């Protein structure tokens, strides 16, 4: 009965709120998470150490400063925020969008609290020659990267104010060409040795540590020796486009169910989604089904 009701629901364009689907999986209930809201009292005892996400008010009461579950390590109490911006770490692979061209640097949106900086001295110039950056280079900065351009970069260092300094001195980094960028929570990106994946279906996937995901539509092995500055703007073939669209819908579905994104989970989801057509993957029921099947394969 429920099954038939569900399939019936799929056919409607406009759904009712009463049929809303809970995308989260029932997790093991034995470890009860206590959820704190900002300003909520955690403890009145003074013998605790205050960690991240907490503060002590004038009465000496320990309170939460962010919304999230409590974490306790011996005497150290911290509250892990439920939703947060990207906290950069050196060596992270990030996807960013240029927001501003300044003197000797580009400002990049990387989903961090402050815009990151990409210094002119930390990019590979087209042609690959290594030299000191001259005034001419500075004047033609917008020719290399302009506002709105997407780049893939690595976190080189963290400035004193917490903003990130990026670099693209390795050939795999640089400007991104045709494809789709998605935004998910940075917590959903699984930390791995490599964040560049050439999937078996031919697409190239970059899972940025900052929660930005790139699905590249360049299926042929592109020569990246120029740092991506010359772009191929020719038409992408239809089957490649379908792969990209399917990947996009799969990744968004996984993110809705809070499944960690890695090349394995994305590939599993892609394979499990093959029984649906691409547009069906936008429906909540189908998204949940694919996420469940992926989860089952992941725990095996």
């Amino acid at each position: 009965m429920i099954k038939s009701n569900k399939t019936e629901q799929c056919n409607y364009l406009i759904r009712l709120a009463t049929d809303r689907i809970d995308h989260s999986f029932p997790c093991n209930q034995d470890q009860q998470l206590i959820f704190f809201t900002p300003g909520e009292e955690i403890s009145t005892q003074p013998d605790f150490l205050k960690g991240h996400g907490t503060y002590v008010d004038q009465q000496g009461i320990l309170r939460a400063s962010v919304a999230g579950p409590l974490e306790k390590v011996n005497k150290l109490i911290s509250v892990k925020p439920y939703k947060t911006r990207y906290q950069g770490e050196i060596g992270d692979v990030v996807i960013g969008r240029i927001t501003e061209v300044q003197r000797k640097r580009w400002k990049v949106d990387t989903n961090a609290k402050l815009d990151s900086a990409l210094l002119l001295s930390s990019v590979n110039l087209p042609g690959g020659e290594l030299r000191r950056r001259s005034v001419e280079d500075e004047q033609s900065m917008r020719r290399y990267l302009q506002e709105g351009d997407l780049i893939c970069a690595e976190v080189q260092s963290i400035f004193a104010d917490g903003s990130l300094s990026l670099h693209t001195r390795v050939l795999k980094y640089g400007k991104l060409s045709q494809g789709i960028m998605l935004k998910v929570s940075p917590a959903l990106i699984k930390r791995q040795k490599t964040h560049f994946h050439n999937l078996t279906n031919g697409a190239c996937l970059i899972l940025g540590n900052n929660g930005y995901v790139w699905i590249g539509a360049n299926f042929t092995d592109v020569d990246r020796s120029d740092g991506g500055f010359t772009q191929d703007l020719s038409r992408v073939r239809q089957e490649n486009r379908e792969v990209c669209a399917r990947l996009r819908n799969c990744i968004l579905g996984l993110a809705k169910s809070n499944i960690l994104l890695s090349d394995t989970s994305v590939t599993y989801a892609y394979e499990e989604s093959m029984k649906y057509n691409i547009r069906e993957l936008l429906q909540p029921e189908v998204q949940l089904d694919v996420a469940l099947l992926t989860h089952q394969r992941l725990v095996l």
Partner: protein
Amino acid sequence: MAEIPLSLAEKTFILHGIDADFRNDGRSRTHYRCMELETKLMDQVHGSARLRIGNTDVLVGVKVEIDTPYPDSPGDGKLEFFVDCSANATPSFEGRGGENLANEISNVLALAYQSPDAMDLTQLSILPHKKCWKLFVDILILECGGNLFDAVAIAVKAALYSTEIPKVKCATLDGGEADIALSDDTYESVKLDTTNFPILVSLYKIGDSCVVDPTSEEEMCSSASIVISVMPNGRISSIVKMGYGSVHPTTLSKTLDMGTKVGIELNNEIISALKREDELGLNREIIGFLR
């Protein structure tokens, strides 16, 4: 609206996709995303609805009040739209930032409902020349994820559908003064006749073709858009062009044809959704924003 700058390559990818009738999320040019609709979710107003499509979230409340009709249309009621863009949607709406967009939306809505074919204002009349109902339609934009106009119009139609106007028991003229008595039973109410209420269909011109229900990325690639209001019988009650681009007359007529077709289908979907909700009865659980 929320401006996301896109790179040339991304724009090219979207453009070629629309050209091939295959968008980035697998939809064709005339397909809408899934929507979620709920009506009567607020107790404080006479009618309310909330619509979510993609990342666009709209909340509409309808309040009715007794007012005096305009002297030049004594037999008509009044209908007023007010749009508020919450700064939750985008930081640029803070302060007076959303005012331009809000005015634009309320003007388009007023234009769509202006035609007597679309909305018969005489049903709001109580005593000609003296008293009439005035409908305040308040629209709150909570999130912007593309295709704002269509979302707002659907939510408005659903909210008006759910509106319950208190029943007037007797209305008499007593020495030139209007004397109105409302029914004692608060549940006794009249519903609006929504059969001809229009919805808005915005068609965004991207490249050489037009798409409906764009995501915010697709909106960035569009230079011009045409917002038409379509009644359930397929008639168009208003046409508004937005954006800096220009539209050729032949493209316009083709666009209108496409918009009408999509509009009729969408209207049917809305009616069927509202009917399904009605079938759930009065004791339906109110979901709202939780769960």
